[in-house]
């Protein structure tokens, strides 16, 4: 009986434009939850709020929610949009998307209440979310000839394994560091797919004909391999100098990856530079981690923040601001708020590093504030595209339709 009563209401909710395409609810959730998390965390650090009583402690909560709440939502949004596009298969339906979003939300609530509910509800809901996401993506990825996008599934499996370790392992932080490595690898894999099209499209648009950008697999594989090796070693030998050398190797491999990107003046195009800066932040982060492990510098946490608050946040922002508009039927955003937000994220990451060098709550609060501003700007400007019907009244995730009015050299992702 209940089922029949609630179905029309659910169907009405699922008919909202928010559930038109996979990225819409999740990009919105990413930015909104990010702003909320950092605001709460700052308040907790200032002593204005009590820390949540979750197993593993407040720091584990902070890292887990930013990785598995904030970043995981953006990963879900990205994969639910990109995999159907890459493989040419149908996207998840509106109802499925609604339930998946609710499952994500339930996972957040359950973890927040883990202090009183126990860890089981949080673990089940969170792992069910990743499992469902993987189940939605696996058939198209598997059926794709040659299976070029299989690495996304491996990354999801590794993220789920690390999350299970956070919930049930003895040292949640070690598992969260492992998850950080997996997230970095996932970002490199995802960005290589995006950057080829984005950069060459930009070059074409700017009329640059003699430069061609190629994301060369050997360089990317070296970076992925060295990050994987570091992550595994740090997990098995925490605080060991062997991991320090491997972190330096990862840093060098990332700088080596930038060889592909040195394509001259075109690099300073805002969309290209944004992705380029992600690799720099990642390289600096691993460099700082390596030096901290080798020379006993107290900058381990600063290095991790360069990876997460810097590189990961910037990558998430970049992908969301491009795909969040293009797949909602809008052209790329050329307003100045985009570079401003990029600058805010980079400055926030650097301020967080300085906060490790010169302990003081002011720099920490400044860092959090700048970061919040960047994602608040995203919410402000992307609210309309994400929650309203497409301007071209088309359905699904298609790119904006080329009409006579739009310039022919306009670029679509």
């Amino acid at each position, binding site marked *: 009986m209940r089922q029949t009563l609630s179905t029309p209401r659910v169907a009405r909710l699922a008919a909202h434009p928010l559930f038109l395409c996979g990225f819409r609810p999740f990009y919105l959730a990413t930015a909104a939850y990010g702003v909320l998390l950092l605001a709460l965390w700052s308040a907790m650090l200032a002593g204005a709020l009590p820390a949540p009583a979750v197993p593993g402690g407040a720091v584990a909560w902070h890292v887990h929610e930013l990785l598995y709440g904030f970043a995981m939502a953006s990963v879900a949004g990205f994969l639910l949009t990109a995999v159907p596009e890459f493989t040419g298969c149908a996207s998840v339906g509106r109802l499925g998307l609604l339930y998946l979003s609710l499952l994500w939300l339930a996972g957040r609530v359950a973890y927040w209440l883990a202090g009183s509910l126990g860890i089981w509800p949080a673990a089940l809901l969170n792992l069910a979310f990743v499992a469902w996401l993987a189940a939605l993506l696996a058939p198209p990825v598997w059926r794709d000839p040659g299976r070029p996008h299989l690495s996304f599934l491996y990354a999801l499996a590794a993220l789920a394994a690390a999350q299970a370790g956070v919930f049930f392992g003895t040292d949640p932080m070690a598992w969260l560091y492992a998850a950080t490595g997996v997230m970095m690898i996932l970002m490199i894999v995802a960005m290589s797919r995006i950057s080829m099209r984005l950069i060459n499209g930009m070059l074409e648009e700017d009329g640059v004909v003699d430069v061609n950008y190629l994301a060369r697999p050997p360089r990317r594989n070296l970076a992925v391999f*060295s990050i994987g090796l570091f992550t595994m070693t740090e997990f098995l030998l925490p605080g060991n100098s062997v991991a320090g*050398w491997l972190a330096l190797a990862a840093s*060098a491999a990332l700088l080596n990856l930038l*060889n592909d990107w*040195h394509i001259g003046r075109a690099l300073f195009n805002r969309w290209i530079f944004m992705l380029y800066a992600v690799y720099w932040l990642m390289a600096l982060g691993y460099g700082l981690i390596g030096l901290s492990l080798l020379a006993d510098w107290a900058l381990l946490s600063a290095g991790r923040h360069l990876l997460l608050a810097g590189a990961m946040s910037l990558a998430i922002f970049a992908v969301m601001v491009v795909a969040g508009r293009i797949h909602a039927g809008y052209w790329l955003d050329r307003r100045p708020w985009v570079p401003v937000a990029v600058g805010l994220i980079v400055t926030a990451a650097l301020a967080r590093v300085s906060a490790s060098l010169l302990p003081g709550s002011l720099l920490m609060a400044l860092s959090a504030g700048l970061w919040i501003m960047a994602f608040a700007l995203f919410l402000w400007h992307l609210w309309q595209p994400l929650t309203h019907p497409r301007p071209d009244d088309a359905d699904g995730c298609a790119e904006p339709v080329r009409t006579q009015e739009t310039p022919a050299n306009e670029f679509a992702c």
Partner: protein
Amino acid sequence: MSLLRAWFVGIPAYLWSGWGAMASLCMFLALWDWGAQVYGDLVLPSPVATLHTLLGLLAGVEAWTELAITARRALLGFALSLGVGSALGLLAGLSMTASMMSRPIVTVLVGMPPIAWLVLAMLWFGAADATPIFTVFIACFPIVFVGALQGTRTLDDQLKDVTRVYRLPARMTLTDVYLPHVVSYLFPAWIAALGMSWKIVVMAELLSTADGVGAALAVSRSHLDTAASMAWIAAVVILLLAVEYLVLEPIKREVEGWRALA
């Protein structure tokens, strides 16, 4: 001029491509570090300890003089083998008979272990400078000789005909047709010989002289000072890498640029 400018503009990109090498070297250092942790500092000092010892050594004057002595010997022997080997190899390559005749001799020279040459050199020259220099020379000579020989032997006969048909001036024939081809064989041989010269000179010094890096290695070994031994080894390897990647490799890329187009 524009070539020179293109070369200078290419320098940052070349240096930046070194990050890939840095990544693999750091992984090697990680493996070394792991070995140090398993076997202890007495057997294998850690990379960081080695680096500290090396910096300590380099802070003094003696280390620099030892390095300078070794570098002088290695480079002298290398230069000798380069000059004599290249000249003789090129000449031998011009004549089929000469190259046929020289092959077995080169085989003997290549097959002769450097340590045997060292023993002979010690008998002939004693503990003087000439011993390591001669050993380096005689060990590097066959490598350079074979490179030069093959360079001239593999010259394309049809290209010779083309130069004749077009009546190319002799200078142009030499610089634009013969030299690029020969150099593309000579250069790898030179680089191989340079790497060889550093290894040989340290070995020769270890056994025959009272100064130089090899002698310093012998002293640190007799003191059971593994950290100092590793530091000296690191110094030699770093110098070799620097010379190869900062001097020889860029030149090699420049002179072999035509291959990508060919």
